[in-house]
């Protein structure tokens, strides 16, 4: 087993090994593993002390910012307040100086009283309570040994926890699903208790002990959960439901939020009441001794357990699921299901016994989830990009943390002033594609310990003041005798080789710098019929962001010729690929001539196209704007996750490609109509690609339409 050791961030500490309920679905007492019978009832002082030391050692070794300790059982409250106080004290004392300690307790609530809750308040122990729904649902399994209901006592505990003095400790309710219960009655009953969070759990089962399916439906659990999902969605998601949030997170490219779903490696270890270290508890469902490691807190560090093959097997992500799962489009969301649920005939190398449910659940939520693909024709994409650039500037200020120097501080104060006084000024400058290039360069420099080019902020503020027509004086820095004002042009202030400071005075849409002449090189525009009104930016010092060298400033005649040629090709683009031209005209603002190379999208904000004269053709333009558009989308939305985890064959590529490369290739070519068979095959691969998010799938649906339209157009052409 390869890969780095994954440290434990969650410790399940068994403080009592017996329970005051006799739930017939309990995985501790009712399943294959009966090791609880030989454990001490209550955790010993020595086991508490040694666990605290081991955990502090582990957190320190791995520089963990936080660790969670979940007090568990049996029923942990049976340990009594004195024992629980000892646990909290020892853990806080040992771990507190090393890492943030997140203490939790999972309980059936029967014993919960102010005596416990005052203790939990003292140590900030947050409380999760198990409740399976309304009384009928809860009584189906959660009864005392003599058959009495536990429901009223649980409600009393929840009421107590909801009191103002304890509400901050309330973690919410954990509900184990039984498909014979009415899903809406269960959900409504839980919601009535106003929990801060609800978690629905599948009852533990394996292929050897399959789940109860009274109707015989292979998707009975998915149907049950989706009924709740629809009610939850219709109500406007009134409470966080972890199961739903986890699936929504992974569908949108984020992490899984629960151990029972997703591909995240396990980071959990169990300490039994005798100090024995075990793997995740639910394994006890599989077979006698399934959770055992042979280690204990008295003789072994947590690192030794982290290296145990059983633990490592659950840390392999995609490599740790069955072959069937690795090829499944929903595996990134379900993660092959809980490890325990894969068990069959002595092996975990199978899909989950809940596989059909998990697939139906993930697909069900997916079809109910709108894509967050920002449109370029209504300003959504531009808005998201503008917000991103503003956030980058704010991030640079935060990362400088007061170390930017006087010039930066002065420019930052003026930037805030311009931002406040002019709606257009600063955004007009930050909206220029190469403002992003400058900001990314500064953040790179800070991260790598190089000096960032902070003086550019003064130039941005000066340009913003001019654009906003604000009357003010802005200190600026010139280099090699030149002052570049982004979006406007370049002014010669002094002779070549000279650098220094000057003051730029703004009045209306005019500006001046004392003692300078008229050597002003304005940013030119492509003002020819047939092309949109774009900036021809061959001036900006940050335009070198395409991965291909930019062309030097063009002479006047050269610029006119370049513009005429560009307009001519753009006119042909409008005729031959009207949809591509129309879409690009909604967001393209800037063209930068490159010295050579492919049409490129680089490390800049949206709106820029870099293109060399030798590829200034209809196809070259189309490829360039499509590359720029995809880049703009990828920068503000998650189209895929785990890029590179799967590899694909694309007709146009010599070797295997990742999903991002496959998507980029299709996005660029689908509109051209010249690669019909290759694109159709690639789109079919993308249809089953597990990496794609809801937004990514929405983009692929658009690409199918674009490919269809382009193919039909091509067929009609002579």
């Amino acid at each position, binding site marked *: 087993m390869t890969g780095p050791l994954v440290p434990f961030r969650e410790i399940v500490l068994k403080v009592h090994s017996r329970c005051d309920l006799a739930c017939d679905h309990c995985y501790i007492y009712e399943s294959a593993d009966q090791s609880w019978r030989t454990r001490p009832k209550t955790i010993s002082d020595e086991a508490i002390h040694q666990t605290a030391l081991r955990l502090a050692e582990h957190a320190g070794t791995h520089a963990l910012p936080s660790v969670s300790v979940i007090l568990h*059982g049996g029923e942990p409250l049976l340990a009594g307040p004195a024992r629980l106080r000892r646990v909290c004290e020892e853990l806080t004392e040992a771990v507190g100086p090393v890492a943030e300690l997140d203490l939790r307790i999972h309980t059936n609530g029967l014993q919960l009283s102010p005596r416990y809750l005052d203790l939990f308040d003292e140590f900030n122990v947050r409380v999760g309570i198990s409740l399976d729904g309304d009384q009928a649902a809860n009584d189906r399994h959660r009864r005392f040994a003599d058959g009495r209901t536990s429901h009223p006592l649980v409600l009393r505990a929840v009421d107590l926890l909801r009191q103002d003095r304890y509400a901050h400790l309330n973690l919410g309710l954990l509900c184990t699903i039984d498909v014979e219960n009415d899903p809406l009655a269960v959900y409504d009953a839980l919601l009535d208790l106003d929990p801060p969070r609800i978690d629905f*759990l599948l009852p533990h089962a394996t292929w050897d002990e399959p789940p109860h399916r009274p109707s015989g439906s292979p998707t009975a659990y998915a149907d049950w959960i989706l009924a709740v999902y629809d009610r939850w969605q219709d109500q406007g998601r009134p409470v966080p439901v972890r199961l739903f949030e986890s699936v929504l997170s992974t569908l949108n490219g984020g992490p899984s939020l629960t151990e029972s779903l997703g591909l995240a490696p396990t980071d959990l270890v169990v300490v039994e009441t005798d100090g024995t270290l075990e793997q995740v508890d639910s394994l006890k469902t599989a077979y006698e001794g399934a959770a055992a490691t042979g280690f204990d807190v008295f003789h072994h560090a947590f690192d030794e357990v982290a290296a145990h093959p059983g633990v490592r097997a659950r840390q392999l992500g995609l490599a740790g699921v069955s072959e069937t799962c690795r090829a499944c489009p929903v595996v990134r969301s379900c993660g092959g299901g809980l490890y325990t649920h894969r068990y069959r005939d002595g092996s975990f190398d199978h899909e989950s016994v809940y596989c059909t449910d998990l697939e139906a659940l993930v697909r069900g939520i997916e079809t109910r989830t709108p894509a967050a693909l920002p449109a370029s024709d209504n*300003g959504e994409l*531009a808005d998201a990009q503008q917000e991103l650039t503003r956030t980058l500037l704010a991030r640079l200020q935060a990362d400088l943390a007061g170390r930017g120097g006087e010039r930066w501080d002065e420019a930052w104060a003026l930037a805030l002033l311009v931002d406040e006084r002019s*709606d257009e000024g600063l*955004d007009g400058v930050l909206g220029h594609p190469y403002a992003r290039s400058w900001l990314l360069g500064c953040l790179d420099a800070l991260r790598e310990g190089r000096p960032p080019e902070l003086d550019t902020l003064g130039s941005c503020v000066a340009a913003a003041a001019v654009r906003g027509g604000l009357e003010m004086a802005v200190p600026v820095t010139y280099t090699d005798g030149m002052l570049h004002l982004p979006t406007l042009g370049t002014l010669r202030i002094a002779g070549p080789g000279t650098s220094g400071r000057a003051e730029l005075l703004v009045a209306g849409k*005019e500006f001046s710098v004392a003692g300078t002449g008229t050597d002003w090189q304005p940013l030119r525009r492509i003002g020819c019929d047939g092309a949109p009104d774009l900036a021809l930016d061959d001036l900006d010092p940050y335009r070198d962001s395409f991965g291909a060298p930019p062309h030097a400033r063009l002479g006047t005649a050269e610029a006119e010729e370049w513009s005429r040629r560009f307009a001519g090709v753009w006119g042909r683009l409008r005729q031959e690929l009207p949809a591509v031209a129309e879409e690009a005209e909604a967001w393209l603002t800037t063209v930068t001539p490159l010295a050579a190379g492919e049409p490129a999208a680089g490390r800049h904000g949206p709106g820029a196209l870099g293109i060399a004269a030798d590829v200034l053709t209809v196809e070259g333009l189309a490829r360039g704007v499509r590359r720029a558009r995809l880049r703009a989308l990828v920068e503000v939305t998650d189209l895929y996750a785990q890029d590179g985890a799967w590899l694909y064959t694309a007709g146009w590529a010599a070797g295997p490609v990742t999903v991002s490369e496959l998507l980029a290739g299709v996005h660029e070519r689908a509109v051209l109509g010249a690669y019909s068979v290759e694109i159709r095959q690639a789109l079919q691969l993308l249809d089953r690609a597990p990496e794609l998010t809801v937004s990514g799938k929405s983009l692929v649906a658009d690409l199918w339409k674009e490919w269809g339209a382009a193919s039909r157009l091509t067929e009609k052409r002579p």
Partner: protein
Amino acid sequence: MKTSVNSASFAVAKKSRVPLAEIDVRGAEAAQQLGRILPASTGRSLRASTFNSAL
């Protein structure tokens, strides 16, 4: 010598934008935004508990 400029638009200002001074660059939303274009941080990160076994 005064220079006069003709400034074409590169971005339309959002009416509902958050003022520059009030942008929360350490929040979850900003982290998600910036995470798409900045290299992953190697710093220590907090992670929520994912354990969910009922009793």
